[in-house]
């Protein structure tokens, strides 16, 4: 592969945002060079140059140009490598629904789930309630489908990676139990399908390492 075609990904081992991009690259069989950025310790000059606005990972570099924001990157990959493993549906209406639910996960669900585990005590009850509401909506949207994308993993599943894997570990670390098999049987089944997928499995960060990280974070003062 020539230099122009090479794909580089700046990421963080434990970040669900970073992993979204890796999942899509792997599902589409796109080779890439992975560069670990320890953003909490020191942001590299490369990161600061490639993502000066947000200074965050993931950042994808392709054909000498950089793209930031995980879902923007996923759409870029989808636009560029059209033939292998479609992540978004073909029909414009279905695509708009996929984008809607992915944004719902990002804007409404992820933050409330995290704050329900980690947030200040004063906010926690409200966050737990909001988290339930969010998960109930997703449970309904999922229905009896194997994945949000239908029979294969799609855009919404990728966006909801935190719920499938990270959140279970966060619950274990914090002792907060919101998403249980009894309350959300469909989401539970979906999580198992998602993390059990042979390609996704390879990409997920090791559980023990994440658990230790969360325990350390929950043990400290819960201000981010």
């Amino acid at each position: 592969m020539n230099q122009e075609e090479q794909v580089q990904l700046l990421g963080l081992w434990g970040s669900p945002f970073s992993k979204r991009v890796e999942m899509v690259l792997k599902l589409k069989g796109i080779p890439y060079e992975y560069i670990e950025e320890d953003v909490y310790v020191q942001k590299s000059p490369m990161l600061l140059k490639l993502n000066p606005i947000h200074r965050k990972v993931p950042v994808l570099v392709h054909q000498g140009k950089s793209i930031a924001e995980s879902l923007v990157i996923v759409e870029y990959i989808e636009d560029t490598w059209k033939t292998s493993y479609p992540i978004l549906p073909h029909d414009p209406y279905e695509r708009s629904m996929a984008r809607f639910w992915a944004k719902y996960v990002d804007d409404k669900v992820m933050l409330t789930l995290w704050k329900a585990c980690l947030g200040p005590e004063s906010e926690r009850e409200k966050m737990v309630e909001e988290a339930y509401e969010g998960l109930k909506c997703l449970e309904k949207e999922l229905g009896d489908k194997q994945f949000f994308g239908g029979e294969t993993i799609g855009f919404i599943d990728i966006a909801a990676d935190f719920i499938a894997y990270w959140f279970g570990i966060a619950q274990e670390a914090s002792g907060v139990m919101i998403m249980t098999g009894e309350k959300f049987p469909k989401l539970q089944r979906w999580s198992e399908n998602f993390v059990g997928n042979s390609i996704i499995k390879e990409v997920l960060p090791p559980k023990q390492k994440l658990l230790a990280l969360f325990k350390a974070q929950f043990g400290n003062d819960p201000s981010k």
Partner: protein
Amino acid sequence: MGEREEVKLLGTWYSPVVARAKIALRLKSIDYDYFEEDLFGSKSELLLKSNPVHKKVPVLIHNNRAVVESLNIVEYIDETWNSSRPSILPFYPHDRAIARFWSAFVDDKWFPTLIATTITKSENAKAKGMEEVGEGLLLLEDAFISISKGKRFFGGEVIGFMDICLGSFLVIVKARENLKGENILDKSKTPSLCKWANEFLSDDTVKNVVPEIDRVVKFMREFEAETQTRAS
């Protein structure tokens, strides 16, 4: 073309994000039926049924299916009426990514910061917020220069996705400047954006679609008085 497809848009006259949908429909010369929603009164059956999750406008109903969220609607219009020129999203994947990146910046960071300065009671928070708004505009100025490559709009010669995204907020910005005597879009700091703003607001697809600034000023004045009465 030929058969008239049923397109409905649910919205409010003052909402900048509803304007996005209207501009996109106008760009593609799509006929549609418009329904004004009274969000302060009671939301219509149709709205509650088509957007049960957020119960917000705009909602585009096409062939009895509801599309929600303004930028989703714009993309949907572009993808569905893809043989009608102009194209709203750019052609190349990287340009599309840039448009999506900046629209996320506007919607998730810049505009919420601006709105927060209207709501906050703390003078300190307000000043800090306005500073961030100004910084954001400097970033958008650079983005505009780089993306437009000397042409009138982010989209080139014709209005595109990023123009619609940021441009839809211009009326609110100008109304706010009018109401508060502030200078948000400063010609000395962001000359290219100021020029772009004039081009955008005087464009045929935008002119009769976005609300008049005076009407929005009056609305903001009334809204502020109402919220202050409720708060005291």
